[in-house]
Protein backbone atom coordinates (compact mmCIF):
# COMPACT_ATOMS: atom_id res chain seq x y z
CA UNK A 1 0.00 0.00 0.00
CA UNK A 2 1.48 3.20 -1.09
CA UNK A 3 1.49 6.62 0.51
CA UNK A 4 -1.18 7.84 -1.88
CA UNK A 5 -3.59 5.05 -0.83
CA UNK A 6 -3.08 5.90 2.86
CA UNK A 7 -3.75 9.55 2.10
CA UNK A 8 -7.01 8.66 0.33
CA UNK A 9 -8.17 6.52 3.26
CA UNK A 10 -7.28 9.25 5.78
CA UNK A 11 -9.09 11.86 3.71
CA UNK A 12 -12.17 9.60 3.44
CA UNK A 13 -12.15 8.97 7.20
CA UNK A 14 -11.77 12.69 7.92
CA UNK A 15 -14.64 13.43 5.57
CA UNK A 16 -16.81 10.81 7.27
CA UNK A 17 -16.01 12.22 10.74
CA UNK A 18 -16.75 15.71 9.44
CA UNK A 19 -20.14 14.53 8.17
CA UNK A 20 -21.00 12.92 11.52
CA UNK A 21 -19.88 15.96 13.48
CA UNK A 22 -21.76 18.30 11.13
CA UNK A 23 -24.94 16.23 11.43
CA UNK A 24 -24.53 16.19 15.16
CA UNK A 25 -24.08 19.94 15.33
CA UNK A 26 -27.17 20.37 13.13
CA UNK A 27 -29.27 18.25 15.51
CA UNK A 28 -27.72 19.64 18.68
CA UNK A 29 -30.98 21.27 19.87
CA UNK A 30 -32.85 17.99 19.29
CA UNK A 31 -30.25 15.99 21.22
CA UNK A 32 -30.27 18.52 24.07
CA UNK A 33 -34.08 18.41 24.17
CA UNK A 34 -34.03 14.61 24.34
CA UNK A 35 -31.51 14.55 27.13
CA UNK A 36 -33.34 17.18 29.21
CA UNK A 37 -36.76 15.58 28.68
CA UNK A 38 -35.46 12.26 29.87
CA UNK A 39 -33.72 13.63 32.94
CA UNK A 40 -36.57 16.01 34.04
CA UNK A 41 -39.61 13.91 33.25
CA UNK A 42 -42.32 14.69 35.88
CA UNK A 43 -43.89 11.87 37.86
CA UNK A 44 -46.93 10.67 36.00
CA UNK A 45 -49.26 10.48 39.01
CA UNK A 46 -48.55 13.71 40.89
CA UNK A 47 -51.81 15.69 41.24
CA UNK A 48 -50.32 18.37 43.49
CA UNK A 49 -50.68 21.74 41.79
CA UNK A 50 -47.62 23.97 41.67
CA UNK A 51 -47.12 25.92 44.91
CA UNK A 52 -48.58 29.39 45.11
CA UNK A 53 -46.26 32.37 45.13
CA UNK A 54 -45.22 33.13 48.68
CA UNK A 55 -47.40 36.25 49.09
CA UNK A 56 -50.45 34.48 47.70
CA UNK A 57 -49.82 31.55 50.04
CA UNK A 58 -49.88 33.84 53.04
CA UNK A 59 -53.24 35.27 51.98
CA UNK A 60 -54.95 31.97 51.26
CA UNK A 61 -55.83 30.06 54.45
CA UNK A 62 -57.66 27.31 52.56
CA UNK A 63 -55.52 24.86 50.55
CA UNK A 64 -56.64 23.86 47.03
CA UNK A 65 -59.32 21.22 47.15
CA UNK A 66 -60.38 22.19 50.67
CA UNK A 67 -63.96 21.06 51.13
CA UNK A 68 -66.45 22.29 53.66
CA UNK A 69 -68.28 19.25 55.05
CA UNK A 70 -71.04 21.44 56.44
CA UNK A 71 -71.63 23.24 53.17
CA UNK A 72 -73.06 26.59 54.08
CA UNK A 73 -71.10 27.37 57.23
CA UNK A 74 -68.29 29.86 56.87
CA UNK A 75 -65.04 27.87 56.83
CA UNK A 76 -63.33 30.58 58.87
CA UNK A 77 -65.56 29.71 61.80
CA UNK A 78 -64.00 26.29 62.23
CA UNK A 79 -60.36 26.84 61.45
CA UNK A 80 -58.26 27.73 64.40
CA UNK A 81 -56.36 30.74 63.15
CA UNK A 82 -55.41 33.46 65.56
CA UNK A 83 -56.51 36.36 63.43
CA UNK A 84 -57.31 38.85 66.16
CA UNK A 85 -53.71 40.02 66.19
CA UNK A 86 -54.39 41.57 62.77
CA UNK A 87 -57.39 43.58 64.01
CA UNK A 88 -56.35 46.85 65.54
CA UNK A 89 -58.03 47.85 68.82
CA UNK A 90 -61.15 49.91 68.24
CA UNK A 91 -60.52 53.47 69.32
CA UNK A 92 -63.28 54.77 71.58
CA UNK A 93 -61.11 57.60 72.85
CA UNK A 94 -62.93 60.88 73.14
CA UNK A 95 -66.30 59.21 73.82
CA UNK A 96 -67.24 60.43 77.26
CA UNK A 97 -70.34 59.24 79.06
CA UNK A 98 -72.04 62.18 80.75
CA UNK A 99 -74.93 60.46 82.54
CA UNK A 100 -75.14 58.18 85.54
CA UNK A 101 -78.28 56.34 84.47
CA UNK A 102 -78.55 52.57 84.63
CA UNK A 103 -77.36 50.98 81.42
CA UNK A 104 -80.24 48.98 79.99
CA UNK A 105 -82.33 46.57 82.02
CA UNK A 106 -81.19 43.90 84.47
CA UNK A 107 -83.31 40.85 85.18
CA UNK A 108 -82.63 37.85 87.37
CA UNK A 109 -83.83 34.26 87.01
CA UNK A 110 -83.34 31.27 89.27
CA UNK A 111 -82.89 28.64 86.55
CA UNK A 112 -79.23 27.84 87.04
CA UNK A 113 -77.05 26.53 84.24
CA UNK A 114 -74.82 24.14 86.18
CA UNK A 115 -76.92 21.02 85.48
CA UNK A 116 -77.21 21.85 81.79
CA UNK A 117 -73.46 22.49 81.56
CA UNK A 118 -72.63 19.21 83.32
CA UNK A 119 -74.93 17.20 81.04
CA UNK A 120 -73.51 18.89 77.94
CA UNK A 121 -69.93 18.33 79.12
CA UNK A 122 -70.74 14.65 79.63
CA UNK A 123 -72.12 14.36 76.09
CA UNK A 124 -69.13 16.13 74.61
CA UNK A 125 -66.78 13.94 76.62
CA UNK A 126 -65.15 16.78 78.54
Amino acid at each position, binding site marked *: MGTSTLLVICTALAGLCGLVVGYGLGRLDWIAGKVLTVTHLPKAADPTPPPLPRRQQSLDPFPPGWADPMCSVSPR*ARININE*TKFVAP*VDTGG*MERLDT*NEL*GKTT*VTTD*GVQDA*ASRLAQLKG*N
Partner: protein
Amino acid sequence: MAKGLDVGTSYIVLAQEAWKTKPMPGLSNKPGVVATPSIPPVAGDTETIIEYREFRDAFYIIHPTTPVAMKMIEKGLQGKVFVRDKDGTFIILGQDAIEKAIERNDSAKRPMYRGVVSAKEKEAKRVLAFILQQVVGTAAVPDEKLIFCVPAQPVDQEDDAFDVGYHEDVVTAILAERGYAAKAINEAEAVCYSELENDDYTGVALSCGAGMVNCCVMLNGEPTVMFSTTKSGDWIDRMVAVAMGEPDSAVQAEKEHGEFTIGQPNTNPVLAAVCSYYERLIDYTTKNLAAAMADHKALPKFKQPLPVVVAGGTSQAKGFVDLFAQKLRENDFPLPVKEVRHAKDPLHAVARGCLIAAKIL
Protein backbone atom coordinates in the same frame (compact mmCIF):
# COMPACT_ATOMS: atom_id res chain seq x y z
CA MET B 1 -65.96 32.57 86.25
CA ALA B 2 -67.55 32.70 82.84
CA LYS B 3 -69.93 34.92 80.90
CA GLY B 4 -72.23 34.53 77.92
CA LEU B 5 -72.88 37.38 75.52
CA ASP B 6 -75.55 37.64 72.85
CA VAL B 7 -74.26 40.22 70.37
CA GLY B 8 -77.51 40.72 68.51
CA THR B 9 -78.61 43.15 65.85
CA SER B 10 -81.30 44.57 68.14
CA TYR B 11 -80.15 43.71 71.67
CA ILE B 12 -76.91 42.99 73.44
CA VAL B 13 -77.55 40.63 76.33
CA LEU B 14 -74.98 39.61 78.93
CA ALA B 15 -75.61 36.50 81.06
CA GLN B 16 -73.60 35.77 84.17
CA GLU B 17 -73.99 33.74 87.32
CA ALA B 18 -74.64 35.50 90.59
CA TRP B 19 -75.52 34.43 94.10
CA LYS B 20 -78.47 35.31 96.22
CA THR B 21 -78.43 34.98 99.96
CA LYS B 22 -81.37 33.08 101.43
CA PRO B 23 -83.16 34.55 104.43
CA MET B 24 -81.69 33.20 107.66
CA PRO B 25 -83.98 32.83 110.67
CA GLY B 26 -82.96 35.19 113.44
CA LEU B 27 -80.66 37.25 111.24
CA SER B 28 -81.29 40.60 109.64
CA ASN B 29 -80.11 39.70 106.14
CA LYS B 30 -82.83 40.20 103.57
CA PRO B 31 -83.60 37.74 100.76
CA GLY B 32 -82.89 38.81 97.22
CA VAL B 33 -79.60 40.56 97.87
CA VAL B 34 -77.34 39.77 94.94
CA ALA B 35 -73.71 39.23 95.72
CA THR B 36 -70.97 40.63 93.51
CA PRO B 37 -71.39 38.44 90.44
CA SER B 38 -67.68 37.97 89.88
CA ILE B 39 -66.92 36.50 93.29
CA PRO B 40 -68.41 33.09 94.10
CA PRO B 41 -69.39 32.66 97.72
CA VAL B 42 -67.05 30.52 99.78
CA ALA B 43 -69.77 29.05 101.91
CA GLY B 44 -73.12 29.91 103.35
CA ASP B 45 -76.73 29.63 102.54
CA THR B 46 -76.84 31.03 99.04
CA GLU B 47 -78.49 29.99 95.81
CA THR B 48 -77.16 30.47 92.28
CA ILE B 49 -79.09 32.73 89.97
CA ILE B 50 -78.57 34.02 86.45
CA GLU B 51 -78.33 37.75 85.94
CA TYR B 52 -79.14 39.15 82.50
CA ARG B 53 -78.20 42.65 81.47
CA GLU B 54 -79.77 43.71 78.19
CA PHE B 55 -79.14 46.84 76.21
CA ARG B 56 -80.82 48.03 73.04
CA ASP B 57 -78.34 48.03 70.19
CA ALA B 58 -79.13 51.46 68.75
CA PHE B 59 -77.75 54.98 68.65
CA TYR B 60 -78.79 58.42 67.50
CA ILE B 61 -76.42 61.29 66.77
CA ILE B 62 -77.22 64.95 67.42
CA HIS B 63 -74.88 67.59 66.01
CA PRO B 64 -75.07 70.88 67.97
CA THR B 65 -74.57 73.89 65.72
CA THR B 66 -73.51 76.42 68.35
CA PRO B 67 -71.98 76.30 71.87
CA VAL B 68 -75.31 77.48 73.28
CA ALA B 69 -77.13 74.68 71.47
CA MET B 70 -74.62 72.24 72.92
CA LYS B 71 -75.44 73.31 76.47
CA MET B 72 -79.19 73.19 75.79
CA ILE B 73 -79.03 69.75 74.19
CA GLU B 74 -76.98 68.42 77.10
CA LYS B 75 -79.63 69.69 79.53
CA GLY B 76 -82.39 68.19 77.40
CA LEU B 77 -80.72 64.78 77.52
CA GLN B 78 -80.89 64.48 81.31
CA GLY B 79 -82.25 61.06 82.24
CA LYS B 80 -81.04 59.47 79.02
CA VAL B 81 -77.97 57.31 78.33
CA PHE B 82 -75.67 59.35 76.12
CA VAL B 83 -72.05 60.20 75.39
CA ARG B 84 -70.32 63.29 74.08
CA ASP B 85 -67.85 62.56 71.31
CA LYS B 86 -64.55 64.32 70.70
CA ASP B 87 -66.05 66.48 67.93
CA GLY B 88 -68.78 67.77 70.26
CA THR B 89 -71.63 65.60 68.91
CA PHE B 90 -73.95 63.80 71.27
CA ILE B 91 -74.56 60.09 70.77
CA ILE B 92 -77.68 58.82 72.50
CA LEU B 93 -77.53 55.09 73.16
CA GLY B 94 -80.00 52.27 73.59
CA GLN B 95 -83.77 52.56 73.91
CA ASP B 96 -83.38 56.31 74.46
CA ALA B 97 -81.93 56.59 70.95
CA ILE B 98 -85.06 55.04 69.45
CA GLU B 99 -87.34 57.31 71.47
CA LYS B 100 -85.36 60.42 70.50
CA ALA B 101 -85.42 59.37 66.83
CA ILE B 102 -89.19 58.92 66.93
CA GLU B 103 -89.54 62.36 68.55
CA ARG B 104 -87.69 63.82 65.57
CA ASN B 105 -89.64 61.74 63.03
CA ASP B 106 -86.44 59.93 62.15
CA SER B 107 -84.98 56.42 62.50
CA ALA B 108 -82.32 55.42 65.00
CA LYS B 109 -79.08 53.99 63.67
CA ARG B 110 -77.79 50.49 64.34
CA PRO B 111 -74.15 49.57 64.98
CA MET B 112 -74.98 46.15 63.56
CA TYR B 113 -76.74 45.03 60.41
CA ARG B 114 -77.83 41.46 59.71
CA GLY B 115 -75.88 40.05 62.64
CA VAL B 116 -72.51 41.68 61.94
CA VAL B 117 -70.84 45.09 62.38
CA SER B 118 -72.67 47.43 60.07
CA ALA B 119 -70.76 48.56 57.01
CA LYS B 120 -73.49 51.13 56.36
CA GLU B 121 -72.76 53.28 59.42
CA LYS B 122 -69.47 55.16 59.70
CA GLU B 123 -69.50 55.18 63.50
CA ALA B 124 -70.78 51.59 63.86
CA LYS B 125 -67.57 50.00 65.11
CA ARG B 126 -66.79 52.68 67.70
CA VAL B 127 -70.34 52.74 69.05
CA LEU B 128 -70.50 48.94 69.22
CA ALA B 129 -67.16 48.89 71.05
CA PHE B 130 -68.38 51.49 73.55
CA ILE B 131 -71.67 49.67 74.19
CA LEU B 132 -69.93 46.30 74.60
CA GLN B 133 -67.38 47.78 77.00
CA GLN B 134 -70.16 49.33 79.07
CA VAL B 135 -72.30 46.18 79.15
CA VAL B 136 -69.63 43.55 79.89
CA GLY B 137 -67.35 45.70 82.06
CA THR B 138 -63.84 44.56 82.87
CA ALA B 139 -62.97 40.89 83.38
CA ALA B 140 -63.00 39.79 87.03
CA VAL B 141 -59.82 37.79 86.47
CA PRO B 142 -57.33 38.00 83.59
CA ASP B 143 -58.48 35.96 80.56
CA GLU B 144 -61.93 35.35 82.02
CA LYS B 145 -63.84 33.06 79.68
CA LEU B 146 -66.55 34.69 77.60
CA ILE B 147 -68.53 33.10 74.78
CA PHE B 148 -70.36 35.34 72.33
CA CYS B 149 -72.57 34.48 69.39
CA VAL B 150 -72.12 35.02 65.65
CA PRO B 151 -74.51 34.26 62.80
CA ALA B 152 -74.05 31.40 60.33
CA GLN B 153 -73.53 31.79 56.60
CA PRO B 154 -76.87 32.57 54.91
CA VAL B 155 -78.45 30.20 52.41
CA ASP B 156 -80.39 32.95 50.64
CA GLN B 157 -77.45 35.19 49.82
CA GLU B 158 -74.24 34.78 47.83
CA ASP B 159 -71.25 33.71 49.92
CA ASP B 160 -69.11 36.65 48.87
CA ALA B 161 -71.76 39.14 50.00
CA PHE B 162 -71.57 38.02 53.64
CA ASP B 163 -68.87 36.89 56.00
CA VAL B 164 -68.69 36.84 59.77
CA GLY B 165 -64.90 36.56 60.01
CA TYR B 166 -64.17 40.26 60.36
CA HIS B 167 -67.09 40.79 62.78
CA GLU B 168 -65.83 37.91 64.93
CA ASP B 169 -62.32 39.36 64.99
CA VAL B 170 -63.54 42.87 65.86
CA VAL B 171 -65.70 41.66 68.77
CA THR B 172 -62.92 39.39 70.02
CA ALA B 173 -60.48 42.33 69.94
CA ILE B 174 -62.92 44.63 71.79
CA LEU B 175 -63.46 42.02 74.51
CA ALA B 176 -59.74 41.20 74.73
CA GLU B 177 -59.11 44.85 75.58
CA ARG B 178 -61.35 44.38 78.64
CA GLY B 179 -59.38 41.30 79.73
CA TYR B 180 -61.59 38.53 78.34
CA ALA B 181 -60.54 35.38 76.51
CA ALA B 182 -63.48 35.50 74.13
CA LYS B 183 -64.61 32.84 71.67
CA ALA B 184 -67.52 32.72 69.27
CA ILE B 185 -70.19 30.09 68.72
CA ASN B 186 -73.18 30.09 66.42
CA GLU B 187 -76.31 31.86 67.64
CA ALA B 188 -78.68 28.92 67.07
CA GLU B 189 -76.14 26.50 68.56
CA ALA B 190 -76.39 28.59 71.73
CA VAL B 191 -80.19 28.18 71.69
CA CYS B 192 -79.68 24.38 71.45
CA TYR B 193 -77.47 24.46 74.56
CA SER B 194 -80.04 26.53 76.41
CA GLU B 195 -83.21 24.66 75.43
CA LEU B 196 -82.45 21.02 74.56
CA GLU B 197 -81.17 19.78 77.91
CA ASN B 198 -84.14 17.45 78.38
CA ASP B 199 -83.88 16.15 74.80
CA ASP B 200 -80.30 14.85 75.08
CA TYR B 201 -79.22 17.94 73.19
CA THR B 202 -80.78 16.57 70.02
CA GLY B 203 -83.16 18.67 67.95
CA VAL B 204 -83.50 21.80 65.88
CA ALA B 205 -83.20 25.35 67.23
CA LEU B 206 -84.00 28.61 65.55
CA SER B 207 -83.00 32.04 66.70
CA CYS B 208 -85.29 34.62 65.11
CA GLY B 209 -83.43 37.84 65.80
CA ALA B 210 -83.82 41.28 64.29
CA GLY B 211 -81.42 40.84 61.40
CA MET B 212 -81.47 37.14 60.59
CA VAL B 213 -82.98 33.76 61.39
CA ASN B 214 -80.29 31.28 62.44
CA CYS B 215 -80.85 27.53 62.42
CA CYS B 216 -78.89 24.70 64.02
CA VAL B 217 -79.54 20.95 63.88
CA MET B 218 -77.91 19.26 66.86
CA LEU B 219 -77.21 15.59 67.53
CA ASN B 220 -76.18 14.68 71.08
CA GLY B 221 -74.60 18.05 71.72
CA GLU B 222 -72.79 18.28 68.38
CA PRO B 223 -73.99 20.87 65.86
CA THR B 224 -74.31 19.08 62.51
CA VAL B 225 -75.92 21.66 60.23
CA MET B 226 -75.94 25.43 60.72
CA PHE B 227 -77.13 28.15 58.40
CA SER B 228 -79.13 31.36 58.39
CA THR B 229 -81.62 33.32 56.32
CA THR B 230 -81.37 37.09 55.91
CA LYS B 231 -84.96 38.21 56.49
CA SER B 232 -86.33 38.70 60.00
CA GLY B 233 -87.72 41.42 62.27
CA ASP B 234 -85.91 44.33 60.61
CA TRP B 235 -87.21 43.19 57.24
CA ILE B 236 -90.78 43.39 58.59
CA ASP B 237 -90.12 46.91 59.89
CA ARG B 238 -88.66 48.00 56.53
CA MET B 239 -91.49 46.54 54.47
CA VAL B 240 -94.18 48.00 56.70
CA ALA B 241 -92.38 51.37 56.73
CA VAL B 242 -92.39 51.36 52.92
CA ALA B 243 -96.03 50.29 52.75
CA MET B 244 -97.25 52.82 55.35
CA GLY B 245 -94.84 55.71 54.72
CA GLU B 246 -93.61 55.66 58.33
CA PRO B 247 -90.03 55.68 59.70
CA ASP B 248 -88.64 52.23 60.57
CA SER B 249 -88.24 53.15 64.26
CA ALA B 250 -91.92 54.14 64.53
CA VAL B 251 -92.99 50.83 62.99
CA GLN B 252 -90.65 48.95 65.32
CA ALA B 253 -92.10 50.71 68.38
CA GLU B 254 -95.67 50.00 67.22
CA LYS B 255 -94.79 46.35 66.55
CA GLU B 256 -93.21 45.88 69.98
CA HIS B 257 -95.88 47.62 72.03
CA GLY B 258 -99.05 47.13 69.98
CA GLU B 259 -101.60 44.34 70.46
CA PHE B 260 -101.83 41.96 67.52
CA THR B 261 -102.02 38.26 66.75
CA ILE B 262 -100.52 36.86 63.56
CA GLY B 263 -103.25 35.50 61.32
CA GLN B 264 -106.02 37.63 62.82
CA PRO B 265 -107.43 40.89 61.43
CA ASN B 266 -106.35 44.15 63.06
CA THR B 267 -107.98 47.58 62.89
CA ASN B 268 -104.67 49.42 63.27
CA PRO B 269 -103.33 49.75 59.69
CA VAL B 270 -99.67 49.56 60.77
CA LEU B 271 -100.28 46.43 62.86
CA ALA B 272 -102.36 44.91 60.04
CA ALA B 273 -99.36 45.37 57.74
CA VAL B 274 -97.08 43.93 60.44
CA CYS B 275 -99.30 40.80 60.60
CA SER B 276 -99.23 40.50 56.83
CA TYR B 277 -95.44 40.65 56.66
CA TYR B 278 -95.07 38.29 59.62
CA GLU B 279 -97.01 35.67 57.64
CA ARG B 280 -94.78 36.24 54.61
CA LEU B 281 -91.65 36.03 56.76
CA ILE B 282 -92.70 32.72 58.34
CA ASP B 283 -93.57 31.26 54.95
CA TYR B 284 -90.25 32.44 53.48
CA THR B 285 -88.24 31.10 56.42
CA THR B 286 -89.88 27.66 56.51
CA LYS B 287 -89.51 27.26 52.73
CA ASN B 288 -85.80 28.11 53.00
CA LEU B 289 -85.35 25.73 55.94
CA ALA B 290 -86.99 22.90 53.99
CA ALA B 291 -84.96 23.60 50.85
CA ALA B 292 -81.64 23.94 52.70
CA MET B 293 -82.09 20.68 54.58
CA ALA B 294 -83.72 18.60 51.85
CA ASP B 295 -80.50 17.20 50.35
CA HIS B 296 -77.98 18.28 52.94
CA LYS B 297 -75.12 15.77 53.07
CA ALA B 298 -74.25 16.51 56.70
CA LEU B 299 -77.78 15.97 57.99
CA PRO B 300 -77.97 12.90 60.28
CA LYS B 301 -80.67 10.29 59.74
CA PHE B 302 -82.85 10.83 62.77
CA LYS B 303 -85.01 7.89 63.83
CA GLN B 304 -87.04 9.73 66.45
CA PRO B 305 -89.12 12.86 65.80
CA LEU B 306 -87.25 16.00 66.86
CA PRO B 307 -88.22 18.99 68.97
CA VAL B 308 -88.02 22.33 67.16
CA VAL B 309 -87.32 25.24 69.53
CA VAL B 310 -87.92 28.82 68.45
CA ALA B 311 -86.25 31.75 70.26
CA GLY B 312 -85.45 35.41 69.64
CA GLY B 313 -87.31 38.70 69.85
CA THR B 314 -89.07 38.29 66.50
CA SER B 315 -90.66 35.04 67.72
CA GLN B 316 -92.41 36.82 70.59
CA ALA B 317 -95.39 37.95 68.51
CA LYS B 318 -98.61 36.17 69.41
CA GLY B 319 -99.38 33.31 67.02
CA PHE B 320 -95.80 33.05 65.75
CA VAL B 321 -95.06 29.52 66.97
CA ASP B 322 -98.43 28.10 65.86
CA LEU B 323 -98.10 29.51 62.37
CA PHE B 324 -94.47 28.39 62.21
CA ALA B 325 -95.50 24.79 63.01
CA GLN B 326 -98.26 24.94 60.40
CA LYS B 327 -95.94 26.30 57.71
CA LEU B 328 -93.26 23.69 58.46
CA ARG B 329 -95.86 21.00 57.66
CA GLU B 330 -97.16 22.78 54.56
CA ASN B 331 -93.68 23.43 53.15
CA ASP B 332 -92.50 19.81 53.50
CA PHE B 333 -89.89 20.19 56.23
CA PRO B 334 -87.76 17.07 55.67
CA LEU B 335 -87.16 16.08 59.32
CA PRO B 336 -89.66 14.28 61.57
CA VAL B 337 -91.01 16.86 64.04
CA LYS B 338 -92.20 15.93 67.54
CA GLU B 339 -93.25 19.43 68.53
CA VAL B 340 -92.60 23.09 67.80
CA ARG B 341 -92.18 24.99 71.03
CA HIS B 342 -91.16 28.41 72.22
CA ALA B 343 -87.98 28.85 74.26
CA LYS B 344 -88.63 29.30 77.97
CA ASP B 345 -87.15 32.80 77.84
CA PRO B 346 -86.98 33.73 74.13
CA LEU B 347 -85.06 37.01 74.59
CA HIS B 348 -82.37 35.52 76.84
CA ALA B 349 -82.02 32.01 75.37
CA VAL B 350 -78.97 32.86 73.24
CA ALA B 351 -77.10 34.54 76.11
CA ARG B 352 -77.98 31.64 78.43
CA GLY B 353 -76.69 29.14 75.87
CA CYS B 354 -73.45 31.11 75.52
CA LEU B 355 -73.05 31.04 79.32
CA ILE B 356 -73.52 27.24 79.36
CA ALA B 357 -70.94 26.91 76.57
CA ALA B 358 -68.55 29.20 78.48
CA LYS B 359 -68.73 26.89 81.48
CA ILE B 360 -67.59 23.82 79.55
CA LEU B 361 -65.44 25.06 76.66
